[in-house]
């Protein structure tokens, strides 16, 4: 496998968020800060790696007719593990991501990779595909979260850098700010993708 090519694809030209516009719900909902973005991204990465691994292992056993329910059971299992694991270890982060962790189940990236990649490729390749796509997703969420946090709360990774009496643009931590920032991010990423010769 060509890792450089895989990196270029999953981070830029075919990035889950900015290239394929998948998983918009968590992308827009949790990225009010960089930390939340990373948290959500890594949780999704874990699920992606796990589900890709297991689905690739079972790819010759699962009957085609019921592959979607089978995939969903596998994905839901991993999501529940993440949900309980986060509650046990990173309780504060779980409180802010809260509702959106169970919703990873319906994140199109995961079912998309299971259907398009893991069900047709070897275990190792699928595992790496999960890792790269997850990190690409995390990368986009981190950038989106960082921009919104700087503009909306005047902070980077939770550290406030603006003076006490300065105002921040509240809109950016709210839902409309997510859409506006994502729009401009798509413009930038399309530029980069073009430069990289993606499409």
């Amino acid at each position, binding site marked *: 496998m060509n890792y450089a090519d895989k990196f270029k694809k999953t981070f830029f030209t075919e990035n889950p968020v900015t290239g394929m516009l998948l998983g918009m719900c968590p992308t827009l909902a949790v990225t009010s800060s960089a930390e939340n973005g990373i948290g959500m991204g890594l949780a999704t990465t874990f699920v992606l790696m796990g589900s890709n691994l297991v689905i690739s292992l079972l790819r010759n056993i699962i*009957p*085609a007719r019921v592959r979607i329910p089978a995939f969903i059971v596998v994905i839901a299992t991993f999501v529940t593990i993440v949900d309980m694991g986060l*509650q046990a270890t990173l*309780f504060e982060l779980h409180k802010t991501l809260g509702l959106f962790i169970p919703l990873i189940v319906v994140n199109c990236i995961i079912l998309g990779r299971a259907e398009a990649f893991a069900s047709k490729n070897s275990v190792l390749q699928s595992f790496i595909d999960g890792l790269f796509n997850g990190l690409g997703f995390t990368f986009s969420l981190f950038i989106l979260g960082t921009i919104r946090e700087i503009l909306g709360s005047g902070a980077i990774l939770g550290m406030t850098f603006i003076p006490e009496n300065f105002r921040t643009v509240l809109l950016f931590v709210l839902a409309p700010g997510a859409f506006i920032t994502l729009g401009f991010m798509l413009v930038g990423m399309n530029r980069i993708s073009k430069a990289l010769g993606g499409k």
Partner: protein
Amino acid sequence: MGKQESGLKVILVLVLIAMFSAILLAYVNQVTREPIAANKKAETQKAIKVVLAGLKDISYPENPTDIQIDNSGAGYFEAKYDNGKTAGYAVIVKGPGGFTNDFDMMVGLDSSGKIIDTYVLDHKETPGLGDGMQKEPFKNQFRGRQLNDTEWKVKKDKGDIDAITAATITSRAFTKGVWRALQVYKTLREDQK
């Protein structure tokens, strides 16, 4: 894929996957149950420590006692000194009708019904505006007040409470929540007489 599998195989595979999933989750659940419970308890403990700050040598039950107030569910922890006398109450109430939703808050009262402090457990108010209810100076004006020495409304509604700038609705819900906590105290006192 592509070929039609027999119905039996389909069922068998799905059942097996579901079984493995269930076993795995049962195991993870067993491992994480204790830490999760501990985390949740620590969260409540932290809140109680804040709202009952200043009371020393007290103990309180593990779980809150449920009570119905103002047509809404509430709960309270009765804190006792070592000699068995009531030291105060930590009351969990809902702040009704916040800007986005109801929110959960805890109000600490001493044995005479004076407010020690307040703590917001869980909320979805606007960051930068409504979440000012967790900050000074808004919080400070509640300390030391009790049911009868205050008109429990924001100033815009001809009450005594200074609302957070540009977040009247949140302030109103918060004030109502505190008022509910004081009603809980009143009910408890009347029961004891």
